[in-house]
């Protein structure tokens, strides 16, 4: 101990490892006096400006406060109050970005100065030595003093410590470049600082007071020496200029040779350090009863015309300080650093207020600081390790930080890093080392928090498990006793039989449900056929189909597979309502069901019914609706089946697809289909070829296409494919095409729907609406338009499914091709989009040339596009 004092008295100091010598740039501000206080228009006073916890806010919005009045009251020992820097009114209390590296928003009190600067009553203290020790500490606490060097540790905690303090070290090193606030304060107010030091001596009774100051502040050194000339136990220790000399541990090491243990505090080794500005504030607080409401801030940088030191009221927005010094920086390339260039942080906005720890506001010019170098690979040059004041290995830390190896980072003593930035300063690879460390530290802290949480959660979970286990055992015990009691009771009476019968009844109910479901599915298939004729059946079937979509689909599939031949028959049946037609329908329905489980059933039914209707029965029904159309449709259908049964199968497929696709609108679709059929008949009336086409169109886009194809075997296949493709790809155009189709078929369709009212009122309505939509060239009726629209919508929505379904349906229906083809085609056409129909029309129409109408042309185009796009799929589907 004595040897240390001897060395100090001989001005022989120690060295700490590392350190750098960045350009000091203190000349910018150290030759000008401190500019007197300048109050801004609005003060933004953060509630918390120190390390610890904020106090409770004492004021409300609209309150008038006096200068020095405390705005918050400390609620814990780690809290210090904040005060009103001047008199005025509280404008609001809200979140605002504060002086924090992350740009956090914190609660701030907005104070509007009234210009009177009226003090609250003060009690000046002539002689602090007459005060009680606890009174002095209370004064320091009430004055809201926290460390002004950077960390902001509440001062009253530091000074309220046990005796046996060896060294009170006053930190006047101010090692950061640019900053001269303490320097100027020492020059201008050395007496007040000395008062503060004396108060601290009075409180702490140290063996020796050391004022550590770098040798680049000769005038401050002179001033301090003059002020302390007659005091023996205060030593002015002039140390070499080296960053980070002002670091607490570094300065202690340099002055006393003592190393503060990692994780320890200086007080544990009998050392207390205070910043000079804090000493000044202590003197002000104890002697003048002036709380900490203002401080010296260095506003510097080559981006300013008049860099200087300024007395700034706490809460002054940085913008006001910068404007006092006339920034020359363009507004769009502004950088403001709070703190020095080594450890300061950039501000996101310039309304951040000055707080108790703000010693510098730096506005660099663009070339001044090296801001835009990009990081390259570390070459392990080791310069970072050479300058590290904590003697760490920054390059190894960097690798581990990048690898997120937290254990290794801890082993490398990451938490002894003081963020001084010396390593990053010298790094020739421009690696932002400190940034990596900060992230790693945050991650490790986060991880540790999570570990603690996980531990607690685990404990809770295990406790719960134990509790549940206990409860379960208790319950089982209870049940066991209860069952024993029951058994005994049952043996005594016949109550048991009653209970059994109840269970049996429940089982029976469940079975009944299942049975119904299956039955319904079966019905749906058959119903589809019947529905074609009887509309009443179709809704029921549809409902059933919805309910049991999956099952129905499976069943349908099986039936389809079995009775491909039947399928065509069903198509025929559709017309005649014969059982074969039922088979086909059932197949179709099955396909639909598969594809569109919920709505598939309905769609199938509709399609099946529609197609058959169109072909033969459809004609009959249609005939009821419109004889002419029916006739045409019949003709078409007849011709189609005759021409190629394959076409029928395709049509059936198409119909199935349509049914799938338009499950929701199946009812409508059905109506549409009917309409389309009728439409088809109508065109057929006009032109046999057209009728075929129209029928195809009517059935469904894809279906129709297929149907047409069926009439012309290859053409049918193609059409089906085309229709599917069209439906998928050209939803929009489908409408148009459907319109076209509608146009051609409009007359007939309209008639059909009307007549088909029996078929499905919904379908009719839809078809009607579609017909309306489409402006059919000549005979187009509103019904057609509606149908077209519906078809288009359906096509859009269920394009994919339709294709698949159509494929399946076609395969299934192939057998039925002959009769069913036409029908299925019709139904498909309905389902599919009118576009498809149009296309099929073109393709179908052997008569197409005759039909050389616009609609046909459009159809032809669409068909071509569809054919191109989906040729493969169609082929596959067909093959299937």
């Amino acid at each position, binding site marked *: 101990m004595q040897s240390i004092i001897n060395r100090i008295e001989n001005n022989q100091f120690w060295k700490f*490892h590392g350190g*750098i010598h*960045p350009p000091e740039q203190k000349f910018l501000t150290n030759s000008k006096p401190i500019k007197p206080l300048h109050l801004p228009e609005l003060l933004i006073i953060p509630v918390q400006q120190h390390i610890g916890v904020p106090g409770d806010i004492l004021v409300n919005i609209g309150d008038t406060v006096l200068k020095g009045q405390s705005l918050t009251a400390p609620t814990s020992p780690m809290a210090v109050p904040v005060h009103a820097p001047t008199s005025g009114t509280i404008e609001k209390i809200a979140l605002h970005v504060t002086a924090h*590296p992350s*740009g956090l928003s914190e609660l701030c009190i907005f104070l509007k100065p009234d210009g009177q600067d009226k003090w609250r009553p003060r009690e000046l203290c002539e002689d602090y030595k007459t005060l009680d020790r606890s009174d002095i500490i209370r004064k320091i606490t009430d004055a809201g003093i926290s460390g002004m060097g950077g960390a902001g540790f509440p001062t009253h905690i530091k000074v309220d410590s046990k005796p046996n303090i060896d060294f009170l070290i006053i930190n006047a090193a101010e090692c950061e*470049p640019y900053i001269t606030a303490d320097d100027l304060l020492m020059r201008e107010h050395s007496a007040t600082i000395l008062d503060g030091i004396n108060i601290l001596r009075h409180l702490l009774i140290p063996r020796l007071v050391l004022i550590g100051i770098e040798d680049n502040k000769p005038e401050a050194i002179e001033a301090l020496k003059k002020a302390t000339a007659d005091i023996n136990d205060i030593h002015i220790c002039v140390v070499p200029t080296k960053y980070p000399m002002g670091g607490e*541990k570094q300065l202690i*090491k340099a002055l006393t040779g003592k*190393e*503060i*243990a*990692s994780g*320890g505090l200086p007080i544990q080794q009998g050392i207390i350090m205070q910043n000079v500005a804090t000493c000044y504030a202590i003197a002000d607080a104890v002697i003048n009863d002036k709380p900490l409401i203002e401080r010296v801030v260095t506003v510097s940088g080559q981006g300013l015309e008049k860099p200087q030191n300024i007395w700034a009221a706490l809460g002054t927005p940085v913008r006001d300080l910068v404007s006092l010094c006339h920034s020359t920086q363009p507004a769009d*390339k*502004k*950088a*403001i650093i709070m703190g020095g*260039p*080594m*450890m*300061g942080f*950039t501000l*996101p*906005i310039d309304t951040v207020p000055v707080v108790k720890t703000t010693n510098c506001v*730096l506005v*660099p010019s663009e070339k001044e*600081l*090296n*801001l835009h170098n*990009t990081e*390259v*690979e570390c*070459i*392990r*040059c*080791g310069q970072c*390790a*050479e300058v590290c004041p*904590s*003697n*760490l*290995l920054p390059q*190894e830390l960097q690798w581990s930080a990048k690898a997120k190896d937290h254990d*290794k980072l801890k*082993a*490398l*003593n990451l938490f*002894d890093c003081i*963020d001084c*930035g*010396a390593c*990053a*300063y*010298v*790094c*020739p*690879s*421009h690696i932002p080392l*400190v*940034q990596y460390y900060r992230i790693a530290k945050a991650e490790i802290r986060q991880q540790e928090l999570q570990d603690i949480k996980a531990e607690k959660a685990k404990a809770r979970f295990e406790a719960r498990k134990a509790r549940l286990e206990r409860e379960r055992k208790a319950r089982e015990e209870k049940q066991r006793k209860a069952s024993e009691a029951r058994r005994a009771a049952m043996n005594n009476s016949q109550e048991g039989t009653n209970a059994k019968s109840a269970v049996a009844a429940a089982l029976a109910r469940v079975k009944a449900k299942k049975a119904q479901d299956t039955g319904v599915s079966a019905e749906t298939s058959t119903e589809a056929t019947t529905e074609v004729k009887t509309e009443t059946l179709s809704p029921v079937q549809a409902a059933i189909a919805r309910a049991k979509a999956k099952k129905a689909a499976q069943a349908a599939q099986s039936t389809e597979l079995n009775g491909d031949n039947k399928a065509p028959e069903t198509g025929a049946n559709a017309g005649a309502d014969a059982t074969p037609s039922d088979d086909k329908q059932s197949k179709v329905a099955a396909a639909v069901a598969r594809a569109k489980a919920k709505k598939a059933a309905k769609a199938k039914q509709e399609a099946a019914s529609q197609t058959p209707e169109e072909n033969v029965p459809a004609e009959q029904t249609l005939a009821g609706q419109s004889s002419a159309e029916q006739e045409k449709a019949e003709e078409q259908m007849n011709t189609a089946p005759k021409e190629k049964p394959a076409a029928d199968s395709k049509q059936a497929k198409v119909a199935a697809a349509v049914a799938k696709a338009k499950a929701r609108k199946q009812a409508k679709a059905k109506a549409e289909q009917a309409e389309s059929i009728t439409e088809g008949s109508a065109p057929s009336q006009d032109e046999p070829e057209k009728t075929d086409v129209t029928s195809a169109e009517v059935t469904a886009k894809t279906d129709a296409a297929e149907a047409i194809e069926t009439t012309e075997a290859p053409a049918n296949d193609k059409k089906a494919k085309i229709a599917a493709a069209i439906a998928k790809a050209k939803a929009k155009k489908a409408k148009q095409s459907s319109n076209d189709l509608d146009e051609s078929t409009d007359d007939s369709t309209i008639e059909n729907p009307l007549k088909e009212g029996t078929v499905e009122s919904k379908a009719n309505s839809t078809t009607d609406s579609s017909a309306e939509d489409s402006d059919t060239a000549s005979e187009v009726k509103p019904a057609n338009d509606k149908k077209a629209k519906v078809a288009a919508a359906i096509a859009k929505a269920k394009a994919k499914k339709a294709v698949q379904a159509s494929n399946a349906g076609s395969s299934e229906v192939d057998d039925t091709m002959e009769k069913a083809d036409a029908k299925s085609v019709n139904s498909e056409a309905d389902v599919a989009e009118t576009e498809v129909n149009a296309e099929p029309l073109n393709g179908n129409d052997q008569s197409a040339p005759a039909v050389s109408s616009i609609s046909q042309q459009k159809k032809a185009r669409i068909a071509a596009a569809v054919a191109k796009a989906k040729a493969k799929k169609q082929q596959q589907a067909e093959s299937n």
Partner: protein
Amino acid sequence: MAFWIASSPHNHIQKETSALMRLVIFATIPGILAQWYFFGWGNIIHIGLATATALLCEFFVLSLRKKPIKAELLDGSAILTAILLAICLPAVAPWWISVLGAMFAIAVVKQLYGGLGHNPFNPAMAAYVMLLISFPVEMTTWLPPRELWPVEYTFMDTVWMIFTESTQLGYSAEQLRTHIDGYTMATPLDTLKTGLTTGLSVSEVTTSPVFGDYFASGWEWVNAGFLLGGIILLAKKAIHWAAPVSFLAMLWLCSLIGYMVSPDLNPSTLFYWFSGATMLGAFFILTDPVSGATSFKGRLVFGALAGLLVYLIRNFGGYPDAVAFAVLLCNMAAPLIDVYTRPRTFGHQTHGLGVAGNKQGAKK
């Protein structure tokens, strides 16, 4: 208003890796000039060949790896590697020696391991060793210094020699190496090794003209040139003094011991310093930060180990010079050396060795 946001520190010393590389490249100039003076144009031609190859390889691999080509290609590290490799080659080695070596150094030793900063071995030395082992004849065809050349040997002769393996007049490399007295001249180190194995004493061997007036005719000046370059680098603080100093000190110490034990079988200490690739290795190879040790103590150990290995291989190994082998062996040891030479962190009582068992030790 766009405020510029960044993490501290906002200041930088304004040094760059590429500037460091450039400085090292410039520091090789004295040694290269000495080489040119004593051994002709060969090495300079090889430097050109190797540099071009290295840059091409670097460009190719960087494009494959989708790295920023301009920045990394021009950081100087590939050029430095090529120069260091070419310096080590015999002046009459055929052109494909330097091309192959540069390709191996850049593509395999450097980039396959992850590029600059990630290569565990010194690329130039690894390439040199590869060439020496693969092409021993070409790699040991050393010319004697200029004053011992039996025939005139011009720049064009050198070009012819490198690309056609004979001079314009048809002399082969072997003929260039033949002394007027009819024996083939080798490097001083080789001559010494051969002589000692045939039972001659050091003083008898060193009467050979290849030893010249001092230690090793020509070679001593080449080494002096690299020593000068190294001193420049030290003065500029581009390299740390620990590794070269400990390397030279260890080599000096070993040779001193050997000389004192058996002066007939061991040449002088300064012969070790000024022959072969000693100075090049000390200041340009061992100071490669990427493949060397990083801490101060680690560098001391690293350099000393290299010095010891050079001495052992030169005296007891199969090769006359040993810097390349010693450097590669030390590269292998560098990570371990680093682990065991970690400095004591400020505020900690014990050294923070990264070994598992030391964690507890640090807490005591």
